[in-house]
């Protein structure tokens, strides 16, 4: 793929991925066919900041985990008052990396 497009993608979407993902993503995009560009543009990623806000407000109910698609963990959090409050607090710090990992998986699925 055109280097300009690759850099545009990286600049636009860098916040959705971990910093250490970006090198790998760039490498994959360079090898990608130009015809894949529209598909790549249509893929929506979850914003880690939004998830952090949801986690702060509704973490005890597991809403953050439901939003991420981790239904099992969401039910676990809901049933245990956010893991006796401890899991909720841990997730305030874990939810942003987890979101970025999920985005990475979505990106990977797109390529596969």
């Amino acid at each position, binding site marked *: 793929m055109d280097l300009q497009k690759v850099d545009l993608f990286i600049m636009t979407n860098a916040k959705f991925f971990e910093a250490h*993902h970006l090198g*790998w993503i760039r490498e*994959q995009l360079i*090898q*990608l*066919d130009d015809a894949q560009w529209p598909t790549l543009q249509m893929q929506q990623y979850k914003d880690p900041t939004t998830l952090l806000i949801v986690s702060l407000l509704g*973490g*005890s*109910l597991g809403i953050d985990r439901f939003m991420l*698609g*981790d*239904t*099992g*963990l969401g*039910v*676990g959090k*809901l*049933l*245990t*008052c*956010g*893991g*006796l*409050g401890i899991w*909720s607090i841990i997730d305030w710090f874990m939810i942003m990396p*987890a979101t970025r*990992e*999920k985005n*990475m*998986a979505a990106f*990977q699925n797109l*390529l*596969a």
Partner: protein
Amino acid sequence: MKRIWQPSRISWPDHNIMTRTNLYALVLTACCTGWIWIGIQFPLFQSGQQHEVGLCLIKQVTNVPCPSCGTTRSVLALVDGDFASSLQWNPLGWLVGTMMLITPLWITFDLLLKRRTFIHFYRRTEGWFKSKWVAGPAIALVLANWAWNICKGL
């Protein structure tokens, strides 16, 4: 020469997928914590000295009970053999109590026999809950239970 993209060359490690070890460790830790918590609270519950525990962030911040407030007291009543008052405290206590009893045994069985039945069950249930026909009624039930909790003033 231009390199052609091949799907088979993608090899990013998939960290976010719940592995068998992660899931079993998480569930066992949760169950152990639950049993320890019940063990600490049970003598207080029996002697009627149990105070409002105050671990729930929602209850602490807003003074309104969350959907699962009362679950500890419900499981304690279950352990005490008082099924009716357990249901009265919070019906979710029955679910949590059953899970606390069954999952450690199930996981031990899986680990001993090197099988994966529990994680298959977990993934199947998770997929099942993604259907709106299951998720919708489940959400409605949780909301109804929440309303009941607020009415009871837990």
